[in-house]
C-alpha cells in the first residue's frame, strides 16, 4: 500500500516535447499526396528542395533530414511506425462502398482510389498494442480520395469506437482528410454526427481518446472526431483547419498569413496539446496510454 508513492524519483528530467519546427510555406499544402515518393532512387523535399535518397528517407521515417519536413505517408506505413510489430488485428475490412446517390463518376473514382491506395476504402481500423499496451487504432487513408469521409469511413470508425467500449480500451484516431465526401451527400455529412456521437459514448465510459492530426486535416473531419481528443496531438507543420486556404481566398478574398493553419498555429490558438515529431510519436503515445491505464488511476494504486 502506497508503495509507489514513496518510491524516490530515480530519473529526473523533463522529457519535454520537441520544439516546434520552422513553419512550412503554404505551398506545402498544394503538394499532391502522390508526388512525395516517386519510384526513382531519390526525391526532392517539397519544403527545402534538398535531394533525398529514398533509402535514407525511409530510414528517417520519411522526414527530411535537412528541414524536418514530414512527408505524407500511408495509413499502413503509419501503423507500422506506431504499433508493436505483428500486434495489429484489423476489423471490418469487408465493409464496402455503395453509391447511394447514384452520383456522377463516383464508381470510377472509387475504383481509382482503391488502386491508388491498395485498400478497399479510406479507413483502417483495428486493435493493436503500443509498447505492450492494448489500444484501438483508426486511420484515415490520404491516398483514398484525399482521406474523405463517406459512409464506410464513418461506419468503420463508429464500430471501432463501440468495440473499444466493449473491450474497455483507449482509442487513437489518426486523421488526415479533406473532409466529408461530397459524393455521398447528406449521408457523408451525418458521419460527422455519427462519429462524434460514438466519441461521446466513449467519453461517458471514461475511456481515453487521443486524436492525432496529420497533414492535411480539414473540413468535416476537423469539425468532428479530429478535434474531440482528450488530448490532441499534431505532427510538426501539419496543416489543420476547417476551411482550406484556397476556399477562404475564393469565398471572401482573404489571404491567410504565412504559417496560418499549421500545427504550430493551431497550438498557439489553443487547439493542439502537443506537437510531436514523427520519431517520438510512438513513445509519446505509449507514455500517455500508460498514464491512463486503469491500473494507473490513483484509486487502484491504494
Amino acid at each position, binding site marked *: 500500500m502506497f508503495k509507489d508513492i514513496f518510491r524516490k524519483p530515480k530519473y529526473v528530467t523533463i522529457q519535454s516535447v520537441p520544439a516546434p519546427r520552422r513553419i512550412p510555406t503554404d505551398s506545402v499544402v498544394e503538394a499532391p499526396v502522390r508526388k512525395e515518393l516517386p519510384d526513382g532512387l531519390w526525391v526532392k523535399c517539397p519544403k527545402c528542395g534538398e535531394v533525398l535518397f529514398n533509402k535514407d528517407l525511409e530510414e528517417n521515417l520519411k522526414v527530411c533530414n535537412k528541414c524536418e519536413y514530414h512527408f505524407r505517408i500511408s495509413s499502413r506505413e503509419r501503423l507500422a511506425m506506431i504499433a508493436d510489430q505483428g500486434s495489429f488485428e484489423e476489423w471490418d475490412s469487408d465493409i*464496402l462502398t455503395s453509391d447511394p446517390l447514384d452520383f456522377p*463518376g463516383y464508381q470510377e473514382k472509387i475504383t481509382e482510389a482503391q488502386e491508388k491506395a491498395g485498400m478497399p476504402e479510406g479507413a483502417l481500423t483495428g486493435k493493436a498494442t503500443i509498447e505492450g499496451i492494448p489500444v484501438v487504432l483508426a486511420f484515415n487513408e490520404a491516398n483514398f480520395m484525399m482521406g474523405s469521409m463517406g459512409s464506410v469511413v464513418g461506419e468503420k470508425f463508429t464500430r471501432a469506437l463501440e468495440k473499444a467500449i466493449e473491450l474497455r480500451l483507449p482509442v487513437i484516431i489518426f486523421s488526415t482528410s479533406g473532409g466529408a465526401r*461530397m459524393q455521398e451527400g447528406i*449521408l457523408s455529412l*451525418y458521419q460527422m*454526427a455519427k462519429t462524434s*456521437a460514438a466519441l461521446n459514448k466513449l467519453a461517458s465510459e471514461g475511456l481515453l481518446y487521443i486524436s492525432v492530426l496529420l497533414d492535411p486535416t480539414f473540413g468535416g473531419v476537423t*469539425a468532428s472526431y479530429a478535434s474531440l481528443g482528450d488530448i490532441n496531438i499534431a505532427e510538426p507543420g501539419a496543416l489543420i483547419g*476547417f476551411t482550406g486556404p484556397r476556399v477562404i481566398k475564393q469565398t471572401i478574398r482573404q489571404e491567410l498569413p504565412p504559417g496560418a493553419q499549421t500545427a504550430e498555429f493551431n497550438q498557439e490558438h489553443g487547439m493542439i496539446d502537443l506537437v510531436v515529431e514523427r520519431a517520438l510519436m510512438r513513445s509519446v503515445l505509449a507514455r500517455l496510454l500508460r498514464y491512463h491505464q486503469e491500473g494507473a488511476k490513483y484509486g487502484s494504486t491504494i
Partner: protein
Amino acid sequence: MAQLFEFEKPIVELENKIFELRKFAAEKEIDLSQEISKLEQRLVELKKSTYGNLDSWKRVQIARHSERPNFYDYAPLLFEDFIELKGDRLFADDRAIAGGIALFRGTPVTVVAHVKGKDTKENIQRNFGMPHPEGYRKALRLMDQAEKFQRPILTFIDTPGAACDLAAEERGQGEAIARCLQAMAGYTVPIISTVIGEGGSGGALALGVGNIILMLENTFYSVIAPESCASILWKDPARAKEAASALRFTAQDLLQLGVADDLVKEPLGGAHKNIAQTAEELSQVIAKYLVRLKGELPEALKNKRYEKLKKIGAFSG
C-alpha cells in the same frame, strides 16, 4: 417589389393579363367572365405545374429567396413568448445565431437558430447567417442549459455554412462545431431540428443532431454548396444546377434517404408568400413530434437519437 424567379414569370404574366382583362371589362362594361374564368383556370394549373413539382435548383432558389422568412419572422408566430439570451460567456455574442427560452404551446423550450439578415446592413451584422465559433459556443451553452433544466430543444437551421475566414480558423471553427455534435448526441431532452432555409454543410449540421429532423418543403440540406460541388466536379460553378440534382439534397430527397423524418408544407410558391400559414404548419408539425418525444424517458431519448445516427449511411457488407 418581391424578388421574382425566371420560372415564376409566366405566372405573373398571366396574373397581369387577367387583371387587365378585368379592368377592361369593367371600363367597357363588357361581359368577359367566361374568358376570365378560363384564364383563371389556366392560372391555377400553371401554378400547380410550376410549383407543384419544383426541381432541386428551383428549391435552392426559393430557400435562398431574399424574402425567405428567417427565425425572427417565425418566432412571434410560433411562441407565446421568447426571451433571447446572448453570448457564449467566452468571447462574444455572435448574431449569426440566436437563442433563448421560448414558450411553445405552454411548454418552455430552449430555442437555437441560425439567422440570416434581411438587408445588407443586417447581413453584415449577422455575417450572412454564417456563424463564427462563438456562435456555436453560445448554442452549446444554451443547449447545456436546456439539458440542466430538462427543457426540450428546438433548433432552426438556416445558413449557407459556417464562417470561413481567418478569425474562424483562429478561434477553432472545427472544434466549436464538433463540440455541438458531441454534446447534442449526449442530451437526454427531446431535440427537434428543423431546416427552414438553407442547410449548408457542417455549419448547419452543428444544430442538426435532433431526435427528429424536419424540413420545410422548399429547403435543402447539403454536404456542400451546389456551386462548390460544380466547381470541383466540372471546374464550372455555372453547372450548379446539375450539381443540385446530383447531390440529392432537397427536403424530398432527405426524406427518401431516411435523414429527414417529416416535411412541413409551404404555401404554393414558397414560405415567403404567406409567413403566417407557414408558421402555422410548422407549429403543428413540431407540436406533433414534441408530444411524441415527451412520452419518452430521458435515457431513451438519448439512446434512440444515437441509434438514429448510427443507421445513417449506406454501404455493403
